[in-house]
């Protein structure tokens, strides 16, 4: 039997697991992903918050409670190793009523029990001293200094690059159609690109984890999409909080957050709308949802910027497991089937801890590989021209003029950075966007999309019209400009 593990799903969880497994000697790690790039499921559209871990009830949701706290701490190391920009800004849970104050005390007690350090309840005056923009009716807040914010797509890309450097194969646009089980053991996965044999199959398929599980004969849980909508403001719009602002949570959700992203945009969201189990791609936004987010966010702060400062709205789906808790396990039946599923919030925070937990469980179940002597913990981030001092910038441009050719005017992204992103694996407009921020500014790509497509076309050797926004079926155009008149064969 092949000593290979197939990880299903190249999200933040699947890639964290792949990263940890890539440290083992003599184990081949293959990640399969149905989308055209890594991190395009739940990983790309969320708050990006590394929760500190006081939210989760250790009795009802032991995995969430344990792994969030541990993952939060691990991220400090992982982010440094992988050059992922993180702002360890801390968070405030704002209380606006006596009932809220009671809940704050519950959260504090739970945080202490979960092992969250440095928690403290602040009075209203202290809160406004830290965050002058907080609403006057806030009477208290739970301050959690260990919470942080990162860019979830940047983190996923960083993990993927580190995985590849350590020998992991990532197969994109590869859909898993079946899990082959023989005599009670997994033998591999059937995919849209053929069969991949494996001794271990790790199910990190996010929203689709329940379907992958069923392919392996496991049906003790379901995953339903919980939609969350967000609004992103112009970088220049403020005021922006220095810390993450949460409302006092309800049993269903942590509520609508007001935060400053690592890129420096004010962002509000999400709401929480449970969708039918099969609505796993329905990342649409709604008037009602966005209005709700606006109303809820308005309660936390004195004033939001004007509505015309909103540059983008989006929605993401969180994979809500039927049992509520993360599913982190190695199954006895079928043997070799491993699951990291139902990674709803605080899944991003927990991901590194989930990966180590999976390794521990696999070891208990017969994985006996030692660690590699040479394993690269570090990953170097691409150059960010706008982050350089003027002297460095001059030197860089004189060595490579393409770093002086700005293609995205709003975010100041250069051709050199775009080419670097393509060499690192971007094949689409969105792939470039998530790696460089080109197209994430106020014009939302209207100025730069075509210049980026032209660079992609050149680097990939394809006609410009056939460059896709997000994989097959999302081509920029339908052919050359005269194709309809000339009756040429054009894409369908």
């Amino acid at each position, binding site marked *: 039997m092949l000593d290979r593990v197939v990880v299903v799903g190249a999200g933040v969880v699947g890639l964290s697991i792949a990263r940890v497994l890539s440290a083992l000697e003599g184990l081949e790690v293959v990640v399969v992903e149905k989308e055209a790039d890594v991190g395009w499921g739940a990983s790309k559209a969320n708050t990006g918050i590394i929760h500190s871990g006081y939210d989760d009830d250790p009795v009802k949701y032991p995995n969430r409670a344990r792994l969030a706290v541990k993952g939060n701490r691990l991220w400090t190391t992982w982010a440094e190793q992988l050059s992922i920009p993180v702002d360890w800004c801390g968070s405030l849970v704002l209380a606006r009523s006596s009932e809220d104050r009671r809940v704050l005390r519950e959260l504090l007690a739970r945080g202490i029990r979960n092992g969250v350090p440095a928690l403290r309840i602040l009075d209203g005056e202290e809160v406004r001293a830290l965050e002058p923009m907080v609403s006057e009716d806030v009477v208290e807040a739970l301050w959690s200094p260990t919470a942080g914010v990162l860019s979830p797509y940047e983190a996923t890309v960083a993990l993927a690059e580190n995985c590849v450097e350590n020998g992991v194969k990532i197969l994109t646009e590869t859909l898993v159609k079946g899990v082959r089980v023989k005599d009670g053991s997994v033998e591999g996965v059937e995919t849209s690109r053929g069969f991949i044999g494996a001794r271990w199959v790790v199910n990190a398929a996010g929203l689709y984890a329940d379907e992958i599980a069923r392919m392996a004969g496991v049906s003790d849980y379901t995953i339903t999409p919980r939609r969350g909508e967000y609004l992103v403001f112009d970088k*220049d719009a403020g005021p922006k909080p220095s810390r993450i602002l949460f409302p006092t949570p309800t049993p269903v959700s942590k509520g609508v957050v007001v935060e400053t992203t690592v890129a420096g945009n004010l962002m509000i969201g999400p709401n929480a709308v449970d969708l039918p189990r099969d609505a796993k*791609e329905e*990342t*649409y*936004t*709604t*008037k009602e949802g*966005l209005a709700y987010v606006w109303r809820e966010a308005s309660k936390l702060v004195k004033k939001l910027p004007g509505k*015309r400062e*909103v*540059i*983008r*709205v*989006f929605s993401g789906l969180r994979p809500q497991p039927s049992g509520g808790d993360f599913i982190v396990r190695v199954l006895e039946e079928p043997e070799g089937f491993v699951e990291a599923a139902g990674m709803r919030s605080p899944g991003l925070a927990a991901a590194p801890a989930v990966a180590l937990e999976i390794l521990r469980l696999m070891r208990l179940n017969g994985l006996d590989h030692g660690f590699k002597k040479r394993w690269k913990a570090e990953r170097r981030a691409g150059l960010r*021209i*706008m982050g350089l001092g*003027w*002297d460095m*910038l*001059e030197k860089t*441009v*004189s060595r490579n*003029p*393409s770093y*002086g*050719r*700005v293609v995205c*005017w709003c975010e*100041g992204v*250069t051709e050199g950075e775009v080419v670097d992103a393509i060499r690192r694996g971007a094949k689409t407009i969105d792939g470039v966007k998530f790696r460089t921020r080109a197209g994430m500014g*106020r*014009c*939302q790509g*209207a*100025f730069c*999309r*075509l210049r980026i*497509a*032209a660079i992609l076309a050149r680097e990939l050797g394809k006609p*410009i*019209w056939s460059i*896709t*926004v*997000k*994989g*097959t*079926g*999302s*081509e*920029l*155009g*339908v*052919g*050359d*400009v*005269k*194709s*309809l*008149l000339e009756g040429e064969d*054009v894409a369908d």
Partner: protein
Amino acid sequence: MPTRRVDLLVVGGGPAGLAAAARASELGVRRVVLVDERRWLGGILPQCIHPGFGLHRYGRDMTGCELAEKLIDRVSSLDVDVYTEAHTVRMGYESYLSKTAEVLTPRGAFRFRAKTVVYAAGARERTCFEAGIVGSRPAGVYTAGEVQEMMDVWGILPGREAVVAGSGDVGLIVARRLTLEGVKVKAVVELMPYPGGLLRNVVQCLEDYQIPLLLSHVVLAVEGSKRVESVLVAEVDENLRAREETVKRIPCDLLVIAVGLIPRVELLAGAGAMIDPKTGGPVVNEFLETSLPGVFAAGNALVINDLVEHAMEQGELAAESAYRFIEDGGFRSASWKRVRVGDGLRFVVPQLLAGFRDVKLYLRASSPSENARLLIPELGKSVRLRSVRPAEMITLTLKAEDVLKAERLTVKLV
């Protein structure tokens, strides 16, 4: 770091910036530098392959490309130092006679120290998000200007069946352009009960091609995950709110967003210039000088124009003002009057008048009307206008002596 001292820095090489650089050079301003982000000069003119340019000024109807060539030739024949693919990272106000700009180009990173600046960075298009369109976010949703560039700069056909949101001039022109390449334009959807573009464009771009114009309608949402599959359109009531019972689905694979332009003022605002919420551009005086002394604004970065000639004349005025600023070491203090925008108008530019010179006012009406009167009560001035449309800029020239004698000035449309 090389710092280049210049007399005039022109930011933006579209019609306003080109006109400014040429005029300044002709007046004798010595060190004139023009920077532009694109590889080619002309701003958006080169992507406008349709006619309708230059008639008022040159007596000849030209395409955008032809006009661009004319303007570029004029600048090339003069002593103007042109930097293309030159992105201005930031601008700063250092002192009364010194403004800084950090400019990144493939040929190096430069810092300019300029006595005067003409800021003509143009506008950007409002996006589907700014238009409040919800739903999914697939390929096939592009702004009208992007569609022009796609087709006529890069040679891409963006779709087979299109819906255009917004009936501004660019939207109308793009609807026709798509039709000419065999794309079926199923509807142009306009929120207001009247078209957003010039009447001649409604006739020449829609009626001549039997493209339906849905007035008092709105695009609510986009459907389709990878590629646009359809859009939801509804009629609106008098408060511009969608009437739920009228929602209909229009299958299409392309949604063109033509819901207006916004002046690009980030660099100006970053340097500390005051912005007028009515225009989205900077507050300027009759020299087109912003609240930063020696920094002038022109073209769509100042106010959204519908005629290229207006952008060009603003560029030229800004250049003349920069020349005076350099020669005289700035302008004398005066009792500036803030023009008050009265009923019936969205904005008036320039916003500040003192009566140093005769001044041309640019105004936009709030709604269409027939037989209107433009009033400045303080001057006892009344101008009869046969037909007024928000799409068409109204201009009015005031004599310096009239401005001088007025205590204050209010402009209104009744």
